[in-house]
């Protein structure tokens, strides 16, 4: 399953590069030179990578060698794995749109800490920290104009 997913990801990159080069070929040379030169190289390389992904029997044979510059992905715990945190991130995104930044930030921090086992005291301190940071640095110091929440327009 992971091998198919891996190959699909490589295929996606190959398609993106091919599309970029295809689109850029009609532009003046000034705007397209770097895309045509490097994009073509990228297409060839990603094609090689795709073939390598498809024919390699073991997923990590080649990857176990050499220097690992990027940290390896950790194995998620539990049934839902990474989906849980993606849900939280998307939840914050929706909350920002619906109730606005100033309310969404402390609420998100409080809910997250509480759900995963923090006591009320710690959760409230963390929420105050998140909210205080938002208010102190961004609202008072940097005067950031927050986007108007959806709820306001409904009310």
């Amino acid at each position, binding site marked *: 399953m992971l091998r198919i*997913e891996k190959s699909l*990801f*490589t295929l996606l*990159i190959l398609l*993106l*590069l091919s599309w*970029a080069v295809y689109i850029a070929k009609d532009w003046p040379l*000034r*705007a397209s*030179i*770097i*895309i045509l*030169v*490097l*994009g073509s*190289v*990228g297409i060839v*390389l*990603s094609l090689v*990578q795709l073939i*390598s992904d498809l024919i390699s029997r073991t997923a990590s044979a*080649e*990857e*176990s*060698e*050499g*220097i*690992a*510059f*990027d*940290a390896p*992905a*950790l*194995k*998620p*715990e*539990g049934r839902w*794995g*990474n989906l*849980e*945190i993606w849900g939280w*991130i998307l939840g*914050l*995104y929706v909350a*920002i*749109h619906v109730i606005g930044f100033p309310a969404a*930030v402390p609420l*998100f*921090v409080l809910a*997250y*800490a509480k759900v995963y086992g*923090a006591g009320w005291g710690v959760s409230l301190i963390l929420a105050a*920290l998140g909210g205080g*940071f*938002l208010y102190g640095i961004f609202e008072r110091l*940097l005067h*950031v*104009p*927050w*986007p108007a929440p959806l709820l306001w327009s409904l009310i």
Partner: protein
Amino acid sequence: MLEAAINGLLGVLTPQSLGFMALGVLIGSLVGFLPGIGGPSTLAIMLPFVMTMKDPYLVIALLVGMDAVGNTASAIPAILISVPGSIGSAATILDGYPLARKGQAARALSASFVASLLGGFVGPLALLAALPILRPLVLAFGSPEFFVMTLWGLTMVGVLSGNTPIKGLVAGIVGVLLATVGLDPKSGVERFAFDQAYLWDGIDLVIVALGLFAIPECIDLASRKTSIAERQEFGQGFWEGIRDGFRHWWLTLRCSAIGAWVGFLPGLGSSVADWFAYAHAVQTEKNKESFGKGDIRGVIASESSNNAKEGGGYIPTVAFGIPGSTSTALILTAFIAVGIQPGPDLLTKQLDLTFAIVWTLALANVIAVALCLLFIKPLAKACFVPFYTIVPLIVVFVFIGAFAANFSSYDFVALLAFSLLGFMMRRHRWPRPPLLLGMVLGEKMELYLWISTTRYGLEWLLRPGVIVLLLLVAASLFYPMLKQRRERAETKAAILQGKTTAKESHAQD
């Protein structure tokens, strides 16, 4: 040059600069000893704030100060709980943790701090020593040489920065192409903008950095949901460790030099500096059988190199605008945003700023080591902070930081898109640093290539400097691939030989 050095020092020693440096050191140290939160993620989170600052000295004090000390505090969890705070202290575990298990954690920690301090001085000294050589070299370069230099930087990072060189190169190319998004300032062509005004100015690097690095780290941290390790005691030998640090000064110096050299080469970075230095110590020191079982020299070798590497990493960044690592790529982004121009300018007109970097690297290390020595026990307690206290705060900071980039709701969409890309890249072991570097270098690469082609046609390819640099590009492209292939063939041959021997002995039986 002396005047620039004095001006640089004066710029760094203002109360404001010192305050920002102390803040940077504090954040860098905190991030350093918290496993799971990488230096690049924190630098990415800091970018939106830093870009509102006007004074380049303050930006240098904060970001360089933060970057310089990440590896100092990362030795604390590496020694105490066998989990490095950052990837640069991985080799420290080999001897640091056995020392802690023997009840000598305090000795290992104090020796690592002294080694970090000494290594932290060698890095800026390397940068200082490189200046007289780099100045004439950079000034002699034209657009063709600069184009090939940027290409070299990209291939080095691409080939060396991952276990699969092809993935690294493709990621770098994708980064360069992402840098072309928006209106082309010369021809006015709308490139990959889908008629969206939001994309006309291009994709903000801050959002890309936050999405690629900060969110995937958070996802890892949140998905793991486990406490790091059982508690470890400090043990004895604090002062002995300090004496160890100075007693092995020659080893420290050699390993620091290795670190500075590794830092200078784009793409290698601290992930290998400590291993190179450790391997050097094992190869050259006497009584090597004690390495890996709790030898203080193993700790000193690793910790001196990873701090010296930071100074070395600024050499290509300052001279050619080619960052040596993800952290320097992010710092370079902030530099450009506040008007610090790497390349010839930073070696001539803005030389005092280069000296400010040198002074900051040295001073930040002193502050960090003092901080670690003074607050070692409370600092170490932070290693045991549960995930639910860190994750929500980081996610919130990332969202705020992304919004502060353009004050647009589309920033969130871009953030989520790059978070997904970063997550997928990490999941399928595509190295992310080349993509970021490609984005940083993309604009310059395009400009240099265009100037070279319009001014010289294809003749620029025949310039001696270009030929030499192209040979370096070819060497950095093919040497690691050939080496990897040879190693693979050797391993296969060894396995086959093993099987044959086993069959023969089986037949004899």
